[in-house]
C-alpha cells in the first residue's frame, strides 16, 4: 500500500428533484440522497460504506463511478477533476474505476457467453489485441473458474460462480479502484466466505483499492481498512476500522453495532450493553433539521435541532492529543461519547 491518494471526494451532493401532486397543487420536492460527504481512498486501501437502506451508500457508489452526475461537490481521481466530465472524456476513468454488483443474476447478460461478456471490455478499451481469448482464460483462472467454460452461458453457473464472472469482468481492464456494491449479500452463507476470500486475495495480488458498500457489519470489519458510517445522506462517523468498531463515538454507530446480531453471542460472549433504536429512518425528502439522527437519538437536546454537527476529530483523539496512537477518526455529534463495550470481547488464544 502506498500513500498516494487515488480518489478524493469533497462535499459531494446528489439531489433528485421531483414533482408531487398534493391535492390540486403540484409541489416541487427534492430527495437529498447524498448531502455533502467527503472522503479519500488511497492506493490499495479499502473503504467500507455502511448504513441502512436510503442512507445514500449506493448513490455514492454511482457518483464515484460517474454513472450519475453530482449536483455539487467534487470528485478527483488521481488528481484529475472528474466531477462533470462528459461521457467521451470518461473513457480513461471507465478503465480505472470498475464496479461489482450485488445481484449476479441480473448483472450478466443471459444471452451472451462468458467469453463474450469478458471480451467486450477488452475490445472497448483495445486491450490485448489478437490475444483476447488467452486473456479471458487467464481471467477465469484468476477468479477460480475453469478456463474451458468460456463458451458457457451465465445460466449454467451457480450464484457464487456468476459473482466470480462479475469479478472477472471488473478485473479485465486492470482497474485501480473497484466499487463493490453489496457483492456477497445475494449469496448463500457458505459461498459468501469463498467470494470474500477471493476478493481479499485479488486485492493483495493486484494492489487494488476498494470502496465496499455493505450492510453486514461482520463482512465490512473483515474486509475494510477504513469505515464510513452513513445516515440519511451524511457521513456521521468515519475512521480506521478498529476505532469505529471498538471505540465508536457517534450514537448511530453505537446503535448499529449494538443492533446487529453477532454470532459470538452463541459462543457465550455477550456484549455488555444493548441499544435499541425506536422508529424508522426518516424520509430523505424532508430530513430533520440540525442533526439528522436526532429524531431517534436518546441524547438529543435543543441544540441538535438547531445546529448541524460538523464532522470533526473524535473526542478521544482530542483529549489524548499528543500521545494518541494516530489514525483517522472523525465523528459528527454534538455530544460524542466513547463506548467500548458494544461488541463482544473475544479472547484470542494466540
Amino acid at each position, binding site marked *: 500500500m502506498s500513500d498516494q491518494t487515488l480518489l478524493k471526494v469533497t462535499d459531494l451532493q446528489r439531489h433528485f428533484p421531483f414533482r408531487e401532486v398534493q391535492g390540486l397543487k403540484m409541489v416541487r420536492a427534492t430527495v437529498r440522497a447524498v448531502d455533502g460527504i467527503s472522503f479519500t481512498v488511497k492506493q490499495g486501501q479499502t473503504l467500507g460504506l455502511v448504513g441502512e437502506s436510503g442512507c445514500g451508500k449506493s448513490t455514492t457508489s454511482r457518483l464515484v463511478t460517474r454513472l450519475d452526475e453530482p449536483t455539487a461537490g467534487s470528485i478527483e481521481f488521481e488528481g484529475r477533476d472528474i466531477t462533470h466530465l462528459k461521457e467521451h472524456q470518461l473513457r480513461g476513468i471507465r478503465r480505472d474505476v470498475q464496479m461489482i454488483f450485488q445481484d449476479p443474476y441480473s448483472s450478466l447478460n443471459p444471452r451472451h457467453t462468458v467469453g463474450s461478456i469478458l471480451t467486450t471490455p477488452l475490445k472497448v478499451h483495445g486491450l490485448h489485441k489478437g490475444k483476447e481469448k488467452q486473456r479471458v482464460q487467464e481471467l477465469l483462472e484468476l477468479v477460480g473458474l475453469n478456463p474451458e467454460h468460456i463458451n458457457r452461458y451465465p445460466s449454467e453457473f451457480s450464484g457464487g460462480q456468476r459473482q466470480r464472472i462479475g469479478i472477472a469482468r471488473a478485473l479485465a481492464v486492470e482497474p485501480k479502484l473497484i466499487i463493490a456494491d453489496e457483492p456477497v449479500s445475494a449469496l448463500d452463507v457458505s459461498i459468501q466466505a469463498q467470494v470474500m476470500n477471493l476478493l481479499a486475495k485479488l486485492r493483495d495480488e493486484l494492489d487494488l483499492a476498494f470502496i465496499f458498500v455493505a450492510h453486514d457489519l461482520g463482512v465490512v470489519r473483515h474486509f475494510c481498512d477504513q469505515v464510513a458510517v452513513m445516515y440519511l445522506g451524511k457521513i456521521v462517523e468515519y475512521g480506521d476500522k478498529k476505532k469505529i468498531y471498538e471505540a465508536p463515538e457517534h450514537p448511530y454507530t453505537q446503535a448499529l453495532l449494538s443492533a446487529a*446480531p453477532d454470532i459470538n453471542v452463541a459462543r457465550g460472549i455477550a456484549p455488555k450493553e444493548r441499544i435499541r433504536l425506536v422508529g424508522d429512518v426518516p424520509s430523505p425528502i424532508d430530513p430533520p433539521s440540525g442533526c439528522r439522527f436526532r429524531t431517534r437519538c436518546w441524547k438529543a437536546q435543543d441544540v441538535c435541532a438547531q445546529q448541524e454537527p460538523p464532522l470533526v476529530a473524535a473526542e478521544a483523539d482530542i483529549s489524548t492529543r499528543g500521545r494518541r496512537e494516530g489514525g483517522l477518526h472523525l465523528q459528527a455529534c454534538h455530544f460524542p461519547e466513547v463506548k467500548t463495550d458494544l461488541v463482544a470481547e473475544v479472547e484470542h488464544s494466540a
Partner: protein
Amino acid sequence: MSTSTNTVSTRTAGANTAGEVVLDVSDLSVAFPTEEGLVQAVSNLSYQARLGRTLAIVGESGSGKSVSSMAVLGLHNPKRTRITGSIKLDGLELVGAPASTFQKIRSTKAAMVFQDPQSSLHPFHKIGKQIAEAYQAHNKVSKQIAHKRAVEMLDLVGIPNPQRRANQYPHEFSGGMRQRAMIALGLVNNPKLLIADEPTTALDVTVQAQILDLVNDLQKEFGSAVILITHDLAVVAETADDILVMYAGRGVEKGSAKEVLAQPSMPYTYGLLQSLPSHSEDLDELKAIPGAPPSLLNLPSGCSFHPRCQFKDQVPGDACFTQLPEWRPTPGLSNREIRCHLADPVATLQLDEGAR
C-alpha cells in the same frame, strides 16, 4: 376466546402447558415432479415444535426449510407436489388432509409471517380491514368488534397511533411497520404455532432488532410455539431455543440452539460457523466451505454433504459415499442428534479447530 369483552386474550395457560408438542413432523418428504425430473426438496424430515419455545430451522437456499414449513400450512399445490410422511398439528394429521381442514387451521392453529411484508399484504385494502377480516373468518362477530380487535392487535405489536393506522393502506407503512402488521395479522386468532419465514431478511439492522425483540416478547405473552426460518446464524444465536440445521432437504443436526452454535458436532454446521465473519473480531482469512450445495434433481449418494466435507477421509471404508447416515445422538454430548458417520465428531472437530 373472550369476544364478549373484546380484550386481547393474553393466554396465561402458556405457563402450565409449556413444552407441550404442538407440531410433530415425522418422516416428511416433499417432492416436485418437473420436466427435468423429480426435485426432492425435503427428504425424511422429522422435528417437533413445542409451546413456549422457538425452533430455528437453518439452512441455505434450496435446503428445504421453507418448503417443509409451507407443507404444514398446506400452501403447496396438491396436484404438483408429492408429500409423504406425517405432519401432526395439535393432534390433527395434515398430510393428505382436504383443503377445508387447512382453512380451519390456518390462523387459528398455525399462522405464517413471510419475508416480504410488501407483497404479503393486500395493497388495496386497509390494514385494519385485513386483520379484521382474518378475525371474522373464524369468529362470528360484528364488523365493529372485529375492527376493535384489529386496533388492539396493532397496539399490541407496538404500532403507535393504532386507531389511525388501522385506516391506512400498506403503502403508507414503512417496512418495519408492515412487518409488525403482518405479525398482528398472524396472531389475531391466537394460533398455537407461528411460523416466521425469514421475517427480518428484508429489513434494516436496527429495525430487525426491533422485530426480533417483538417476536420474543409476544411469544412470552402468548406462550405459543414459534418456528423461525432463517439463514442467519447470528439471528438464531440471539432468539432461538432449539435449532434444526438442514442441508439438501435433510436435517443434519439438532439440539439446543446455544449449544449447537457454541459447539457444532456435524461438519456442515461447523463449516458454516467457521466461515462467518464477525463484527467483534479481526480474522486473517475466512474459512470457507469449498464447493456449492448440490442440485436437488440429482442428490449425491450417501451423505449429501460428502462432496464438500473435509472429514470424509476419517471415516473408514466408503460409508460417506454409499450410506445415508441415520440420526444418532452425538457421542459425548447430551440433547444432541446428528446425521454423520464420524466416530467421534466432537474430538475430530475440536482437533481441527485447534490446528487452525
